[in-house]
């Protein structure tokens, strides 16, 4: 029984890490309809900034996280204006080509600037302590990530469903021409959404770095994982993404506990099974 709880905690923590990193991608893919394979690249940029701020400049963790989010958005703005701007509404394959190109460039530049070694983001002592849950100990950082995931989910839900901007965003998504006719500045809406998605990527990259360490190849290494959880959840849906992350996290964790030899099989067979049952993703909307 204790083992079951223990696995449960691990599964929850892992699922939340996946959620925090992937949710930004769900925004770009579901709401902006851009297959953004460079999502991992932005998460990685966030990680590098945080690492540089916290480790090399010795700034506090919270400051480093803020800098990472803001810095990544600043870097992303010209990229959006110059490159992404050109692929809104283009065929998916064109978007794939462009965003893979961006990913390659970011990897190359990161490798050149920061070198190929792993970069850590020093966490404050309070997050490094093991915390006892009674039946087992778990690192405080894991609990922190779970909290972050919950906060992001709620915050984003509020932002999209309850704010005026959220209304404009959903209107622009459903019918850009109509929204524009109603006076919504779709250009601005897209730019802001993109910034939010990138900021979330950076945030996820930083808080998830304990599990997915920052190195130049990060951008490609985890791309598939992000893409899978977002699509399984149903792109654009926050509850869907959350459900997918928790479900896949649980399957992955349990599979790796029960039969580590076949861990990969578990995960991908589960993916096939879920998509088979929900061909539009867990919370998929009709096109």
């Amino acid at each position, binding site marked *: 029984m204790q*083992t079951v709880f*223990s*696995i449960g905690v*691990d599964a929850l*923590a*892992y699922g939340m*890490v996946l959620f925090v990193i992937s949710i930004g991608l769900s925004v770009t893919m579901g709401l902006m309809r851009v297959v953004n394979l460079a999502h991992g690249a932005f998460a990685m940029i966030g990680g590098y900034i945080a690492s540089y701020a916290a480790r090399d400049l010795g700034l506090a963790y919270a400051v480093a996280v803020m800098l990472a989010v803001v810095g990544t958005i600043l870097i992303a703005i010209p990229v959006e204006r110059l490159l992404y701007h050109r692929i809104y509404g283009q065929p998916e394959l064109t978007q794939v080509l462009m965003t893979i190109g961006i990913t390659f460039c970011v990897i*190359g530049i990161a*490798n050149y600037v920061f*070198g*190929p*070694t*792993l*970069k*850590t983001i020093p966490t404050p002592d309070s997050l490094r302590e*093991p915390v006892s849950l009674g039946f*087992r*100990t*778990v*690192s405080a*950082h*894991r609990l922190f990530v779970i909290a972050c995931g919950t906060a992001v989910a709620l915050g984003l839900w509020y932002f999209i469903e309850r704010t005026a901007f959220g209304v404009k965003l959903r209107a622009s998504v459903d019918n850009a021409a109509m929204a524009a006719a109603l006076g919504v500045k779709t250009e601005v809406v897209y730019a802001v959404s993109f910034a939010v998605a990138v900021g979330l990527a950076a945030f996820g990259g930083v808080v998830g770095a*304990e*599990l*997915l*360490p920052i*190195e*130049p*190849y*990060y951008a*490609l*290494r*985890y791309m598939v*994982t992000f893409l899978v959880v977002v699509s399984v959840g149903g792109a654009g849906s926050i509850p869907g993404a959350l459900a997918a992350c928790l479900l896949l996290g649980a399957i*992955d*964790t*349990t599979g*790796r*506990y029960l039969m*580590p*030899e076949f*861990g*990969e099989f578990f995960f991908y067979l589960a993916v096939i099974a879920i998509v088979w049952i929900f061909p539009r993703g867990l919370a998929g909307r009709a096109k």
Partner: protein
Amino acid sequence: MKHVAIAALAAVLMGGVAHADTIKVGVVGPFSGPFALQGKNFKAGIDAYMALNGNTVGDDTIEVIYRDIPTADPAQSKALSQELVVKEGVQYLAGFYFTPDAMAATPLLEQANVPMVVMNAATSAIVTKSPYVVRTSFTTWQTSTPIAKVAFDGGTRKVISVVSDYGPGVDAEAAFKAGFEAAGGEIVEAIRMPLQTNDFSPIMQRIKDSGAEGVFAFLPSGPTTLGFVKAFNENGLKAGGVKFFAPGDLTQESDLPALGEAALGLTTTFHYAVSHDSAENKKFVEAAGKAIGNPAELSFPAVGAYDGMHVIYKMIEATGGAQDAAKAVEAVKGLSWESPRGPVTIDAESRHITQNIYLREVAKADDGTYYNKEVQTFEKQGDPGLAAAK
């Protein structure tokens, strides 16, 4: 253009021209992609050797040509090796980080009359694929066998083996199992994890549940190692007194800054530590550190490459620059020298390197950096893997 090509072709066909002006060495390795760091170390080792020993042997100038294979890709390795031999006219093939890449190129050697110096790929069987293969790195068997003895002598009797599910991981498991069971210990469980594992918590739970006193681990260096070691600490295994044994790939120096405190006290056996205390090594670390730019990125592939260049220089010396693979390989059989890692010999029979294997412990230096501290030496270790295969 075409004439040059034909001339080069003729040169290859006729077994090379004595006293060629430039002798080319083709190096195949991962210079970009997820293993770029290891490829960078190849280059640093080669640059260091050439900086210290000059770029000429006799009248001949040595030129190194690099070709990139980001991840194991035997077909691409063969294509690039072929290109190096046929188009660039290299007399020596070297490098090879991954076993399949080395294996794929071995069928070319005899036909091309080119020796291959393996600077990393660590599966025992590579040297048996062609008489023209010489290896200056190590084998997983070679570095994993002594840690079994260390574990048993330290009083650990029950060990769980946890390795990544690919060739080297399986080798490491077999080597440790053979050594540990021969000594009288028990492997309570042997787990093979997929290479793509991000969260190691469930594995740690398995280790806990197995009731083992110690864990033997093998993973490819890089992000997975970091995740594994962190999970080992965070899940309370380290604090719970579970001993940790691994070959030195896990605590390679370039990963230590990231591993940091988590790695403190981990014991590994390996053929080379950057901290190795010898005049030869100081010279090497200085030169290689300069070559790589950031000395913290230096780790074991550099020394394999450095010694590989030594062997190639000796081969060129012996053949006088003529292309004669048989003669070149013959010349280095039994060759002994003082490497940065300690005394080494190319075993005449297997053409694999015989070397000391060191037991090391991750320690914190006065300046706050972490390093592998050598605490015990197993002298003149051959490759037990070849014997095991027979």
